[in-house]
């Protein structure tokens, strides 16, 4: 463009254009005071307190903002998919050159159609008990095989494989590739779940996909998927979209994971963690055995040192000592007795010698026996006239006949 031309025309700055457009919009009778109906999408409340979202229908969408002061006057919180009528004005956000709807109030126009269908299906399945805790199966601590139903090209499978392999490279991964958005997706996902139940012996199944719009995730709100998950005898983890996205499959599944990555962390146990856990138990096992033995030793020691036991021991010692001394006494006593007896024997012997009648015979004494009866005659009364008596002397005896008897006279 020749320089002269530029000098002849007026050149606007971006700011000027945006300001001009804003004034144009705001002067427009229709745009400055308008009612628009549509479905709320991507509703987010910023930390400033203002809400940002889109209003859309089948063909197109418009960016919306609702300031904090207006938002606080609403009697309900706008939600994803909600069918509404918004009163407000359309203007330009000068900084971005972006036109948007400034919402002053929102009127709920019944629940959005999608949302209504979702709610209906949810309450139907819930009343059938398909969400109840009693049907939830626990995940295996260490699966041998993991089945995954998702898109073979999506972010979900990449995340699951990389996290799963990193945490535990010994676990088999079986992928059943399926669509994860659109009408056909629901059928394919349900078929994948059935496949694993019929033909494969995986220990746990992950179904899901990465984040997307509510429409993109919608196939996970399908009854066919819900029933396939419910009928699965293999535990199913549902991992659809982001933390804030809830689908019917999340409710039916045995475990809901916030994201596919979270599902991988739930399903694939960290090998190193398991190893160190086993090591820890081994340590406990060993130390409990050691302390068991230690305890028994202490018990034994305390038993043997207990006073009653010691008392008994002392008693035994005392008994032993007294037994010993008693034995000595006994020995002494026996010895003494023998000695005494020996002495006595000697004395008796002497006495016997003295008392021996033969010693009397030596001195000239005699003893007399009745010859007929053999009786020793000790008294005159034992004798009658004409008895024959034997008179025993030191060296023989003589027989004599009694001629006369004289009683009482000792002196002849």
């Amino acid at each position, binding site marked *: 463009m020749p320089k002269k031309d530029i000098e002849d025309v007026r050149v606007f700055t971006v700011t000027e254009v945006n300001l001009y457009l804003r004034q144009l919009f705001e002067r427009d009778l229709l745009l400055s005071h308008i009612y628009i109906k549509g479905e709320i999408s991507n509703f987010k409340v910023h930390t400033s307190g203002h809400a940002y979202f889109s209003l859309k229908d089948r063909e197109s969408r418009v960016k919306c903002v609702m300031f904090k002061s207006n938002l606080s006057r609403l009697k309900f919180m706008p939600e994803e998919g909600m069918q509404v009528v918004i009163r407000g004005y359309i203007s330009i956000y000068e900084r971005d050159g972006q036109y948007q709807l400034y919402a002053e109030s929102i009127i709920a126009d019944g629940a959005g159609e999608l949302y209504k269908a979702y709610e209906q299906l949810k309450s139907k399945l819930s009343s059938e008990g398909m969400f109840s805790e009693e049907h939830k199966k626990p995940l*295996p*601590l260490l699966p041998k095989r993991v089945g995954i139903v998702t898109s073979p090209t999506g972010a979900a499978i*990449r995340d699951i494989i*990389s996290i799963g392999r990193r945490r535990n*490279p*010994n676990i*088999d991964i079986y992928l059943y590739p399926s669509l994860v958005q659109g009408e056909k997706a629901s059928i394919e996902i349900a078929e994948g779940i059935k496949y694993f139940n019929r033909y494969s012996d995986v220990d746990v199944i992950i179904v899901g996909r990465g984040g997307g719009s509510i429409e993109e995730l919608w196939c996970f709100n399908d009854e066919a998927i819900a029933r396939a998950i419910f009928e699965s005898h293999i535990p199913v983890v549902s991992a659809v979209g982001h933390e804030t996205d809830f689908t019917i499959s999340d409710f039916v599944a045995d475990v809901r994971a916030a994201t596919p990555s979270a599902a991988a962390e739930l399903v694939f146990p960290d090998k190193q963690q398991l190893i160190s856990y086993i090591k820890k138990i081994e340590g406990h096992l060993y130390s409990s055995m050691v*302390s068991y033995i230690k305890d028994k030793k202490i018990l034994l020691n305390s038993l043997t040192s207990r006073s009653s036991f010691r008392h008994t021991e002392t008693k035994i010692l005392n008994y032993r000592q007294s037994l010993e001394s008693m034995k000595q006494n006994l020995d002494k006593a026996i010895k003494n007795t023998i000695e005494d007896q020996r002495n006595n024997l000697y004395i008796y012997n002497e006495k016997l010698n003295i008392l021996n009648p033969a010693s009397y015979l030596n001195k000239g004494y005699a003893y007399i026996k009745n010859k007929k009866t053999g009786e020793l005659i000790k008294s005159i009364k034992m004798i009658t006239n004409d008895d024959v008596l034997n008179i025993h002397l030191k060296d023989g005896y003589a027989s004599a006949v009694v001629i006369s008897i004289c009683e009482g006279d000792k002196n002849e």
Partner: protein
Amino acid sequence: MNNELSFEKAIKRLEEIVSILESGDLSLEQALEAYSEGVKLSSYCNTKLEEAEGKMIKIINENRDYKEIEMDNEMKE
């Protein structure tokens, strides 16, 4: 599904044995028996963890004619 002792059952039994041993209520013979069972279980668990490198399989569905094939290298990263 097979009948061999599962990893979690082995771990559970192992934990049980430790707590029984810790209670100290066993006779010496029982304690030694429990201890040796525990040692066996922990080595079993370690073996389970070190089973062969996991396979990476993709299922191909051609009109319900299923095939299991090795995953492409790009998927394994």
